[in-house]
């Protein structure tokens, strides 16, 4: 059974997608339990895989028994086992937490919603486990297409934002596909491990250089890396709340994983960092991404929009950390993929709870929320502290690795950007805490939308499962912080090739 874990990670959600669609036709109440069951299955598989990788090292799985490089191989090592567990956990928690919200928003089309939901997870988990460059493209499109559809289900400007997301996302994926085509042209293989073996003799080839550049640009578009981030804030802030809290933490993080995977295990560090001289410009772009993302976040008075700009800045953290090219920086980037997935999920879910109860995502409407939603706000504070980078929350530790890496690499600009962004995050979050801490003035009662009533000082928490999920996530944030050292020494150290100092 455990030999089939890498396959099951994709097959369980894929098969479940069909069952949910059929089940929901019979009785739409079946959709949620079926999805929960499938995601629990894939979560347990992810745990099993991580344990197995820790015990025996790299796990290879040959689909249908065809040996690579001819067949498609799924290959799980320390790097993807860790990210896989984070993705499966967030997907499962988000499902539990947003159940009532989804019932409210999509009560008449639950089957379709949960089918898309689980297909997105199938795509993301497939991207993580696959060891085949073309297979990765197909799964990337599965994840992207379901993502577009989910974002487009939202109200107001969501369909328009989703359409713009499709235009840019498709160009990104096509670029990646082109890059893979160039690699296939010179090597005749699509298997990542095989590519890594065959490429070193071709490092001077112009085709390989073009493939590298085209792949990198495509991936930067997909992850929303500055200056190719224009689609991200609209798509993620106009998406329905249960979708924002799913795609914002996961999709960009998985795309950063793809960049790490392709650079370290297809092109090899020697080529990515030494032969190609893109490290320096990439770090500078990351600095600009962090600074602009932070200032854009400062300029908006809407909660979800502010959080999407923080995502833009966080992408800069990870990309910059990776291109520092030393062990500390790359460790920080990989650790931050996991931490940021949980942190972003936590703030977006808290935002969803607040919007659900307050009926608006304007920061000015959050007055008196500490009294009204004490647990949600407490969790929001923990998540905010984590994004700022206050110990013992996990955000501190990944930022610590990133800053140490920046100092080791002599990239003081990147270090300054990280510190500046932390300071701006302090302003961003304490501004919200302050507004939410004080009672509303009487005069403000009037302009709250009808149906939600004026804010009173009674406790009016979000639905129970949402609050419970938030608490679990907050505990997770602190646990990830406390065990950050173990995660790095036991898992991430083995995920980085030995050659990197």
């Amino acid at each position: 059974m455990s030999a089939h874990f890498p396959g099951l990670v994709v097959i369980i959600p894929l098969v479940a997608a069909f069952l949910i669609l059929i089940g929901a036709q019979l009785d739409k109440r079946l959709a949620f339990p079926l999805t929960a069951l499938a995601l629990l299955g894939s979560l347990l598989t992810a745990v099993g895989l991580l344990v197995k990788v820790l015990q025996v090292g790299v796990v290879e799985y040959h689909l249908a028994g065809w040996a690579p490089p001819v067949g498609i191989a799924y290959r799980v090592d320390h790097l993807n086992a860790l990210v896989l567990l984070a993705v499966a956990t967030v997907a499962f928690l988000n499902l539990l937490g947003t159940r009532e919200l989804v019932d409210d928003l999509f009560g008449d089309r639950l089957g379709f919603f949960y089918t898309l939901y689980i297909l997105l997870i199938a795509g993301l988990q497939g991207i993580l486990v696959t060891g085949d460059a073309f297979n990765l493209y197909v799964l990337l499109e599965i994840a992207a297409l379901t993502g577009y559809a989910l974002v487009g289900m939202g109200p107001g400007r969501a369909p328009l934002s989703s359409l713009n997301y499709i235009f840019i996302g498709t160009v990104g994926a096509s670029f990646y596909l082109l890059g893979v085509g160039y690699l296939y042209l010179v090597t005749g293989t699509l298997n990542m491990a095989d590519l890594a073996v065959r490429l070193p003799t071709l490092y001077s080839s112009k085709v390989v250089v073009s493939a590298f550049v085209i792949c990198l640009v495509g991936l930067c578009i997909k992850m929303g890396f500055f200056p190719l981030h224009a689609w991200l804030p609209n798509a993620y802030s106009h998406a329905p709340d249960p979708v924002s809290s799913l795609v914002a933490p996961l999709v960009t993080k998985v795309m950063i994983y793809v960049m790490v995977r392709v650079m370290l295990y297809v092109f090899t560090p020697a080529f990515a960092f030494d032969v190609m001289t893109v490290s320096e410009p990439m770090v500078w772009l990351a600095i600009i991404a962090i600074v602009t993302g932070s200032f854009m976040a400062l300029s908006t008075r809407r909660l979800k929009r502010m959080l999407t700009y923080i995502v833009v800045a966080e992408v800069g953290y990870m990309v910059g950390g990776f291109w520092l090219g030393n062990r500390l920086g790359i460790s920080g980037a990989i650790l931050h993929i996991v931490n940021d997935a949980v942190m972003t999920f936590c703030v977006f879910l808290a935002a969803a709870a607040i919007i659900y109860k307050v009926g608006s995502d304007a920061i000015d409407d959050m007055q008196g929320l500490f009294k009204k939603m004490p647990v949600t706000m407490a969790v929001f504070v923990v998540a905010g502290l984590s994004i700022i980078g206050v110990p013992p929350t996990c955000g501190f530790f990944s930022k610590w690795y990133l800053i140490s890496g920046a100092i080791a690499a002599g990239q003081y600009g990147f270090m300054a950007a990280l510190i500046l962004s932390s300071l701006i995050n302090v302003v961003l979050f304490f501004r919200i805490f302050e507004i939410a801490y004080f009672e509303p003035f009487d005069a403000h009662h009037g302009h709250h939308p009808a149906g939600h009533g004026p804010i009173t000082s009674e406790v009016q928490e979000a639905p129970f499962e949402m609050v419970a999920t938030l608490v679990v996530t907050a505990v997770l944030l602190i646990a990830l912080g406390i065990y950050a050292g173990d995660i790095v020494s036991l898992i991430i150290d083995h995920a980085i090739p030995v050659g990197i100092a």
Partner: protein
Amino acid sequence: MESLLANFVAKYNYWVYIGLVMIGMYAMIAKRNLVKKIIGMNIVQTAVILFYVSIGAKKGKTIPIIAHGHEDTGHHAVQALDYISPLPHVLMLTAIVVSVATLGVALALAIKVYRQYGTLEEDEIAMRVKDQ
């Protein structure tokens, strides 16, 4: 000039692929109508398909089916060089499905946008978004 022309004639399919990518990108950037943008997106995807199909093709070689293979009981050597490479073509079957699915999702969203704003022109949509 002559060598450029010779290069173009010998590898015209690659030049066409680059031209198609440029046309598609131009449509996506410069056109203000959403359906024209969607068509531009589809042209980019089709151009990539043309590129892949080109790298599998070989001049003067045949399709990769071994004639009378089922009658032959013995093992005889198959010269891979005599056949065009089927792998990129098979890959593109998947890519065609992907591009059809992308087109479908994009058109469905365009319909949703049209129902919402009553137009597909970006400028008019932007005006209506402002009015709301």
